[in-house]
């Protein structure tokens, strides 16, 4: 079936295809239409699930954790302040090794109350042990929800998929929707390895001492490492079955490019157009889209960026006191390659609080990175007002 859906509706329909069994969510702009659509899908019988209407995001994630521990496939969605409020339980879900899947609609953090997009909300949760996908289109949102379950349930870690406020969440696109049966061939019903089963009792969340805590963490790290391969395979299998795949990172016109723009989310779409334009004008510029941020696809990023002249990383976020977060990730990945192959990394802060990242903005970055001889480690803030 093909339908015209917003990014938010696509997220909801993704959970429908995957046959999430328990949904526990609290409304926040711009996520609201995800849970409203799910409430409708549940109410009209298209999705056989229980919908828990909770009193805060903290309870929303607690509800998912409880339901997942009881052996159900769960889904939730939130944004910004709501995600921040969940923080304690994000750790819980990950350390409890519960494969909850959640959509986060990227929205700037307050105060300076803003409902517009930037990545600081999701990136502030980078270290909680969740897998992170950044999506570029509504189709990718729907497909990533389905893939997320596949990966999460294989490695027993939760997954957060991220979509930009309004640019995706409220923008319509034609989206292919597989049926629940088709999806089930790709994603079999959830079979938890351990759950609250009266016939085979287990306990979650016990007290541990210094002798074992570190091993818990180590096992998570091992699972995260595995997740890279699992996610890659999940994407390949998905492509085989449905004809669509995205990779964990996606190079665009990079074959012979000396200069690379690194992007994520909807900025990647704008960058594609800009790259086409720059290519026509003879610039040796390409684009690398980062779809998966955790686990970080080190090897792939290294391979692709190795030997380039310069790399410009566009960060719609700011780690105040350090710089753009994607820039740090890329620099970190590129440190261990031979010096003669190592490109200079230029960091750019763009589009905070939803400020438009237009083709002109991206072209100005491409121009700067080609012109400026030294990446001095400082972030360049684009379009800043006096």
């Amino acid at each position, binding site marked *: 079936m093909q339908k015209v859906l917003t990014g938010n509706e696509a997220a909801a329909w993704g959970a429908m295809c995957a046959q999430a069994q328990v949904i526990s969510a*609290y*409304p*926040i*702009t711009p996520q*609201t*239409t995800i*849970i*409203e659509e799910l*409430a*409708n899908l549940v*109410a009209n019988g298209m999705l056989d699930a229980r*919908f828990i*209407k909770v*009193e*805060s995001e903290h309870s929303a994630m607690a509800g998912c954790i409880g339901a997942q521990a009881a052996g159900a496939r769960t889904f939730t969605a939130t944004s910004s*302040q709501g995600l921040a409020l969940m923080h304690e339980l994000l750790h819980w879900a990950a350390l409890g090794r519960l494969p909850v899947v959640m959509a986060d609609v990227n929205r700037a953090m*307050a*105060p300076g*109350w803003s409902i517009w997009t930037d990545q600081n909300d999701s990136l502030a949760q980078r270290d909680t042990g969740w897998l992170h996908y950044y999506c570029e289109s509504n189709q990718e949102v729907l497909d990533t929800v389905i893939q997320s379950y596949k990966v999460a349930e294989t490695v027993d870690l939760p997954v957060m998929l991220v979509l930009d406020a309004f640019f995706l969440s409220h923008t319509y696109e034609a989206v292919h929707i597989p049926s629940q049966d088709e999806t089930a061939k790709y994603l079999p019903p959830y079979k938890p390895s351990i759950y609250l089963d009266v016939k085979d009792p287990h306990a979650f969340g016990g007290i541990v001492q210094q002798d074992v805590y570190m091993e818990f963490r180590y096992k998570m790290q091992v699972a995260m490492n595995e997740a890279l391969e699992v996610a890659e395979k999940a994407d390949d299998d998905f492509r085989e079955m449905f004809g669509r795949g995205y990779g964990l990172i996606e190079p665009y016109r990079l074959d012979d490019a000396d200069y690379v723009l690194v992007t994520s989310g909807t900025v990647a779409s704008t960058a594609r157009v800009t790259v086409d334009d720059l290519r026509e004008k003879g610039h040796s510029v390409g684009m690398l889209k980062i779809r998966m941020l955790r686990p970080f696809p080190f090897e792939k990023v290294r391979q692709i960026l190795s030997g380039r002249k310069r790399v410009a990383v566009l960060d719609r976020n700011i780690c105040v006191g350090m710089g753009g977060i994607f820039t740090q990730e890329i620099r970190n990945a590129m440190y261990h390659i031979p010096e003669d192959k190592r490109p200079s990394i230029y960091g750019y802060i763009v589009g905070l609080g939803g400020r438009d990242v237009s083709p002109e903005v991206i072209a100005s970055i491409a121009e700067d990175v080609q012109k400026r001889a030294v990446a001095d480690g400082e972030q360049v803030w684009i379009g800043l007002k006096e």
Partner: protein
Amino acid sequence: MHASYTKYLRMNRIPHMWCPGCGIGIIVKAMIRAFEAVDWSSDDLSLISGIGCTSRAPGYLDMHTLHTTHGRALSFATGVKFARPDKHVVVISGDGDATAIGGNHLIHACRRNIDITLIIVNNYIYGMTGGQYSPTTPVGAKAATTPWGNVDIPFNVTELAKGAGATYVARGHIASGVQLERLIRGGLNHNGFAVIEVLSNCHTQFGRRNRLADPIDLIDSISKSTVNIRQAAKMNKEELDGKNVVGLLHRDEDRMEYCEAYEQIIERAQNAQKNRGRR
């Protein structure tokens, strides 16, 4: 516009963002009249809110304002009051803000009896986020997240406040601005935690889904649901069924206010210290 309103408003922030016909404006006006009646200057007043349509109010009022996070206004307000017990602290909150995400803070503020006046604008729904059900949505009512009607039993906000220990509890409604002003004034004058629930209309989100899209119809239906506390005293249980009793519902002047109790503890501890030194 009457001069007293402009005295308390940030006129450069007007026009406001509320829907035409929204009850919040009436409530803000009653609140301003109450400020004037008790003769509180803007300089001595802190108005604090969480998030929601209601919680936008402090943006329009020319005083010390904090527009905080969803549900937590009372915690911020407790901090302000503790830092400056000499100042007046007022919180304005929606039903979702105060009783859903902020429900925990509400009961604990009631329990402590701290000298803060809380105005809860109960429009039965989450207005700002587009009409999802709240803990005060009536059973059977439709909301964006209850397309076939709500099954959860709503809170009785005033009973909740009373039960948790608030020492001034009142309920007013938007069709009676004069009474509302009086109830708010009583709360401001009260030395302790005062809760004034105000039944209000969100025709845009609640009314539209429940055959009351016209603000006048919705205000009318709210007004008809109310009965004054004096009248209510003469009515039996069946007659009161489904009615909202309005007026001053509970007042306890005997319990000590929290900041004062805290001061006393400090004094006791310091005296004990001094006596020990003397010994």
